[in-house]
């Protein structure tokens, strides 16, 4: 794939066709021979052949334990493992030793919340005291969070006596960043927020939140699951303290994700999962720990998946994230036209600025599950339900929405098929 023959950012028809040819699953049919229209990339993306090949190749050619053993295979496996770390770090604007492998974003968020707990009970010594939470300290979230960036903080609050506060969202689902000065206070110790909502697709203005958090000395934690696969993300430039993202949403394998932490913070943070591969000296009564990132990677990692994720990051990098973002912006414009389908109401921004090609909606008179079923019969895969964001749905007074979400391989034809399918839903249920 080259993108040099295009002047404007985006993907030409030829480039898009080449991208699609890289994804074997997109060629299959569903529900009695219908072409697949996959609009559930927000839940999980499909994988290019090169990622699949990389995993197979790892097992066929390089499989060995990493960071132990002096034989050639161990060297090669370790090199592939660490090359993947460098590739992913470069992709998100971080240094390699600031990337901790986890089983996914959920594990990354839990890692941080339990590390803060451990610091609170004195683990990590003097260096970790900055992370200790006291009763009455505040953890600030937003109403737009995925449960993965909400429930672990609730648990941390319950363990430490900290208090939860949160940003509300406006009627288009955008986080009320204008409330930063009042929501983030001198008692705020952590501000955890999503970079882009998996429901509304709204992109969060990071800078004002980070600026206010820094003003009061609070840590910032960015849920970058939805942004990293779809936008150019530079974590150093965003200046957040921690971030999490998952591999399977960014064309990579399942079972792997990453925690980003600023180097000096990871160096001070106590470990959570302990055991092999993360220690320096172990006696019968105590152990000393390796520096990050190994300190947080006890046990055997998902090595083949990690190597695959490194290749997924390179795949996106070669396409160019500006091109990916521009392509998906065009798709968002197309998707938002569903607002013209009678009975369809979009939950989220109705305009394509500062939003992803992730569009949740309700069809008046038809439950989201039934909407999804009718679309599925036409070969169109969308997500239905609360998308792991019950508070956000409650904010809009609804229990469930249907959601169409795109990725780099999504075409405008996919979106047209989706709109046409949607137009037939109310007729099927005789709703007028």
């Amino acid at each position, binding site marked *: 794939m080259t993108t040099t023959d295009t002047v404007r950012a985006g993907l030409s028809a030829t480039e898009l066709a080449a991208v699609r040819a890289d994804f074997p699953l997109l060629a299959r049919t569903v*529900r009695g021979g219908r072409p697949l229209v996959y609009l559930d990339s927000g839940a999980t993306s499909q994988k290019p052949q090169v990622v699949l090949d990389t995993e197979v190749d790892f097992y066929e050619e390089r499989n060995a334990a990493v960071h132990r053993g002096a034989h050639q295979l161990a060297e090669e496996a370790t090199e592939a493992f660490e090359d993947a770390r460098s590739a992913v770090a470069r992709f998100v604007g971080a240094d390699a030793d600031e990337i901790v492998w986890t089983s996914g974003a959920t594990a990354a968020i839990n890692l941080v919340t339990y590390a803060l707990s451990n610091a609170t009970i004195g683990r990590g010594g003097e260096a970790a005291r900055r992370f200790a939470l006291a009763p009455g300290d505040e953890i600030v979230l937003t109403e737009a969070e995925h449960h993965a960036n909400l429930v672990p903080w609730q648990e941390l609050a319950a363990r430490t006596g900290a208090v939860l506060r949160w940003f509300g969202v406006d009627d288009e689902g955008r986080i009320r960043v204008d409330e930063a000065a009042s929501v983030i206070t001198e008692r705020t110790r952590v501000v955890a927020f999503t970079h882009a909502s998996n429901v509304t697709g709204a992109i969060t203005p990071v800078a004002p939140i980070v600026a206010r958090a820094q003003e009061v000395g609070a840590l910032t934690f960015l849920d970058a699951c939805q942004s990293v696969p779809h936008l150019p993300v530079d974590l150093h430039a965003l200046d957040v303290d921690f971030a999490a993202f998952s591999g399977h949403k960014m064309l990579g394998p399942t079972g792997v994700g990453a925690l980003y932490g600023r180097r000096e913070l990871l160096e001070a943070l106590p470990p959570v999962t302990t055991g092999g591969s993360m220690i320096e000296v172990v006696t019968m009564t105590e152990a000393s720990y390796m520096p990050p990132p190994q300190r947080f990677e006890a046990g055997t990692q998902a090595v083949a998946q990690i190597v695959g994720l490194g290749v997924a990051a390179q795949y996106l990098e070669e396409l160019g994230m500006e091109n990916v973002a521009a392509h998906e912006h065009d798709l968002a414009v197309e998707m938002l036209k569903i607002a013209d389908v009678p009975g369809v109401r979009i939950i989220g921004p109705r305009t394509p600025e500062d939003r992803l090609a992730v569009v949740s909606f309700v069809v008046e008179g038809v439950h989201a*599950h*039934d909407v999804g079923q009718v679309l599925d*019969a*036409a070969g169109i895969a969308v997500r239905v*339900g609360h998308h792991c964001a*019950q508070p956000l749905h409650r904010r809009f007074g609804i*229990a469930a929405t249907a959601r169409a979400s795109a990725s780099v391989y999504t075409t405008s034809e996919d979106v047209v098929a989706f709109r046409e399918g949607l137009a037939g839903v109310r007729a099927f*249920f*005789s709703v007028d």
Partner: protein
Amino acid sequence: MSSSLEQMYQQVILDHAKSPHGRGFVELAEGHLHGESHQINPTCGDEVTMRVEFDTADPKVPTISRVSWEGQGCSISQASLSVLTDLVTGAPVAESEHLGDLFRQLMQSRGKGLDEDREDELGDATAFTGVAQFPARIKCALLGWAALRDTLATSGVLAGPGAASQPPLDQPLSPQSPQENR
């Protein structure tokens, strides 16, 4: 629309979903044994609160005198609640348990349905045969039946004097464990 879609959304299901029976709580009659259950389908947020009143005039054969419920959910869950209301209202408790077992067997049939005798007993509920082709929707159809079972278990009606003397069910139970809503 594909045939499997139409097999799932039978007209009887669409009709029940549009005007569901039993929806909306009614005042509980005084002095009657009753039970209540709240069930949710955590994957999609569908939920129901069901109230069941029992007639225990004949303690050996307690019957269900009234079913009412409030809930929100897809057409499958709402229609299933409606059909359940029709099926078990006035039925002996043991019969309602038996119907619940049959319905769970139907949902495990992968769309093949049951034998004629059992389908006769289920009446309108056999319209849900097509739902059993869609594993993700089975729990929608079972939401109400889970509420009924919970209501029977928690109301105390099963522990009444009639419980011990109920005849054993004459239909074999499915060897598979029924799919639960949670």
